[in-house]
């Protein structure tokens, strides 16, 4: 039995920032299923948005408005305003902690353009994204991990959470698996933060790491916690053909252009003002349409058709200076130099706008009134505060990690000072122990790998960029059946120590639960908004659907409820770019 006042699950940007803050007053530990510096924050490339105005005039208010409009007005406006205001201080803090930002000739933090970020409420693109070449996430992750080392934050590397200890509406600890021994460890805590990231691995083509399996969300769902706005899932327009590896929007921020087989700059037809820097949902749909209308590079409209991202006119020097990793990915995986030839790309499953509902301090909410649990927090991609609404703008994921990870950590630091430890009954680990024993017992069962591939295919084909009721209803049934099949799976590997197969089976279960819930939420929402594009309901419907979805999974059945959207600052308008 371990005892910490604050426990952080996940060692990406949100978790590490929260740990730094929480450890200022409370005994804090970070549990992570990966070595911390392997977390997926490190794969973020292009930048972190903050209205520093280092290059040209900019204001937090413009950033907040862009975030709200980018989210197709499902964004909670109070959360977006806080995000854009706190972003400035957060970026300076990171710099002051040593983050090696790229610099202007005057020695200030340099800034570049990014999709949907504009000056004066949509007039033209603005240089708002602070960046470190195309390794911004890597530098954030490194900087925060370094600071955690400096401040003696305790880490439990390769510990995997199996269950959450809840006493009514209060969280009092975690049941975990030590990967290196296969033993169960119980952690008692006054406060627990989930910062476990996204779940792109439910799709066949994704930019996400293998580790992005929605563990935190699924574990909490299993304990009766609802999830918010799961139907909104972002496809990034530019993933490497066939592999889905991310090619940052920063390429277009630096001047890169999307072209179809005829060489046309097709975004002129879809977003005449912002062109290639329109929000991601619009560009992903535009690429999809070009391919469907046989203007993809292959020209056959097939699922593996693609378009070109042309950066050749930027020149080798600029590409190597500002986009060195992109150049390297391009050489490694496409066999071309982006200075010589355009890159072959298509949309790739990228980011969950929805997640564990929280208030502005990261406290998890359990009903439509916004009532919070005690001692339970979430931040980062696994959470939904909601700043991204129906579609996230580029760079705002990193902004959210820093701003809301920090806020949640600060709140925990205060909370643990006045709170007591709860009671973790001696048998609290039994359900998890029994589940592990069952998984490790020998016997024949369905092959987890075929089930995983089938889930990824079903989600890609039916709950992707464009959706319709008929296909989603079928997909929901299929996923329901797959969840039944899943219960029969056994590990062929009975070992206790370093058993990767057992972890992968648990992760698959999490993905299946979330895929099932996402499909149900998407089927239920009869409108098109942001990343949720319905062929059978092509218009946004503010009268009936300007509301957040809350979904529970109860004994295999989905229960839904709704929560109001904060629209206190800007009235919803049609979304044109």
């Amino acid at each position, binding site marked *: 039995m371990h005892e910490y006042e604050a426990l952080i699950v996940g060692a990406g940007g949100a978790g590490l920032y929260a740990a730094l803050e929480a450890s200022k007053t409370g005994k804090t530990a970070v549990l992570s299923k990966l070595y911390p*510096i392997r977390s997926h924050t490190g794969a973020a490339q292009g930048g972190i948005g903050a209205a520093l105005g280092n290059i040209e005039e900019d204001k937090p208010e413009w950033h907040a408005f862009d975030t709200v409009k980018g989210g197709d007005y499902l964004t909670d406006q109070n959360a977006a305003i806080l995000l854009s205001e706190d972003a400035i201080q957060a970026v300076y803090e990171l*710099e002051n902690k040593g983050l090696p930002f790229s*610099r202007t000739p005057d020695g200030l933090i340099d800034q570049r353009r990014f999709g949907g970020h504009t000056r004066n409420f949509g007039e033209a693109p603005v240089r708002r994204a602070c960046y470190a070449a195309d390794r911004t996430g890597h530098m954030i992750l*490194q900087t925060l991990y*370094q600071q955690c080392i400096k401040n003696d934050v305790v880490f439990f590397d390769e510990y995997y959470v199996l269950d959450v200890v809840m006493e009514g509406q209060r969280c009092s600890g975690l049941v975990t698996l030590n990967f290196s021994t296969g033993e169960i460890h119980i952690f008692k805590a006054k406060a627990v933060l989930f910062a476990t990231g996204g779940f792109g691995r439910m799709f066949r083509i994704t930019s996400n*790491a*293998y580790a992005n399996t929605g563990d935190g969300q699924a574990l909490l769902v299993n304990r009766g916690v609802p999830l918010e706005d799961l139907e909104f899932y972002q496809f990034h327009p530019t993933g490497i053909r066939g592999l889905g590896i991310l090619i940052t929007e920063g390429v277009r921020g630096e001047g890169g252009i999307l072209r179809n087989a005829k060489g046309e700059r097709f975004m002129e037809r879809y977003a005449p003002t912002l062109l290639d820097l329109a929000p991601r949902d619009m560009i992903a749909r535009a690429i999809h349409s070009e391919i469907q209308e046989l203007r993809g590079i292959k020209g056959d409209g097939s699922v593996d058709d693609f378009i070109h991202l042309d950066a050749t006119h930027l020149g080798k020097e600029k590409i190597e200076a500002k986009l060195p990793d992109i150049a390297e990915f391009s050489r490694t995986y496409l066999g071309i130099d982006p200075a010589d030839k355009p890159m072959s790309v298509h949309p790739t499953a990228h980011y969950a706008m929805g997640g564990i509902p929280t208030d502005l301090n990261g406290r998890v909410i359990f009903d439509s009134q916004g009532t919070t649990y005690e001692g339970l927090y979430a931040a980062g991609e696994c959470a939904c505060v909601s700043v991204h609404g129906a579609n996230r703008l580029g760079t705002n994921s990193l902004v959210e990690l820093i701003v809301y990870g920090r806020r949640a950590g600060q709140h925990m630091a205060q909370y643990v000072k006045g709170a007591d430890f709860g009671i973790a009954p001696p048998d609290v680990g039994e359900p998890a122990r029994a589940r592990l024993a069952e998984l490790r017992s020998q016997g024949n069962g369905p092959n987890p790998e075929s089930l995983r591939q089938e889930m990824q295919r079903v989600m890609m084909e039916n709950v992707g960029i464009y959706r319709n009721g008929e296909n989603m209803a079928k997909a929901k049934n299929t996923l329901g059946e797959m969840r039944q099949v899943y219960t029969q799976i056994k590990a062929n590997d009975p*070992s206790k120590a370093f058993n990767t197969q057992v972890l992968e089976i648990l992760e698959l279960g999490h993905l299946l639960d979330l895929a099932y819930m996402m499909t149900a939420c998407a089927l239920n929402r009869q409108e098109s908004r942001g990343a949720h594009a319905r062929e059978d309901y092509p218009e946004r419907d503010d009268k009936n659907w300007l509301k957040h979805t809350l979904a529970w999974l109860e004994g295999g059945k989905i229960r839904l409820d709704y929560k109001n959207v904060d629209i206190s600052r800007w009235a919803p308008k049609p979304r044109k770019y």
Partner: protein
Amino acid sequence: MKITVEIQRFNPESDSKSYTRKYEVDAEPTDRLLTVLLDIKGTQDPTLGIRKSCAHGVCGSDAMVINGKERLACKTLIKDVAQGEGAVICVEPLRNLPIQRDLMVDQDKFFKNYMHVKPYFMSSEEPKEKEFRQTPDERQKFEEGTKCILCVSCYSACPVIQEVNPNFLGPAAVVQAARFNDDSRDEGFEERLLQLDYPDGIWPCESRFECTRVCPRGIKITKTINFTKRKIQQHKS
């Protein structure tokens, strides 16, 4: 094309020593080796132990020895290591660290050495303005070290650790120290100096360039180590 993948195996719960197992697979020349290994795990042998995460060469999880050289499995395409039908790819765990299971090694010592050099930003002053000013040239001076993903490849390839001094700090730790020592904003050089300037610290390096040869991030490691050695010598004289 049909290829054979020979993987070094070891399970501490059932094996007294490592052995090699062969797997026949059908792979495309442009497939990532990581994908092929996971395909083997998914369809032929689920007990295969391997670490992985980002799958595109930025997280550092899947460094291993491939045909005798340290590489990231996700950044290695089949055509890079296997030519033609029937080719054999030999996959082993990293060297210089204890094997935990199959392709996973215990990285504890590597990270202890990393933390030993105080790999974090130190400054006694608050910036005069909102950010510390730093010119693009000053920023460029420590660019190399910022690229490191702590994948352990250099540590595994280091012949000094293998043949001369197993307690040598290792290449990555020095690179991490240099990343801060060469940063115009940082003031921790003297503190870090104590962590580098001792017999098992920076000095065992013999400039044999194996680290530089294998670094998947293309960091000029040996050059960085030699630069740091000179900086220490200049400081002391």
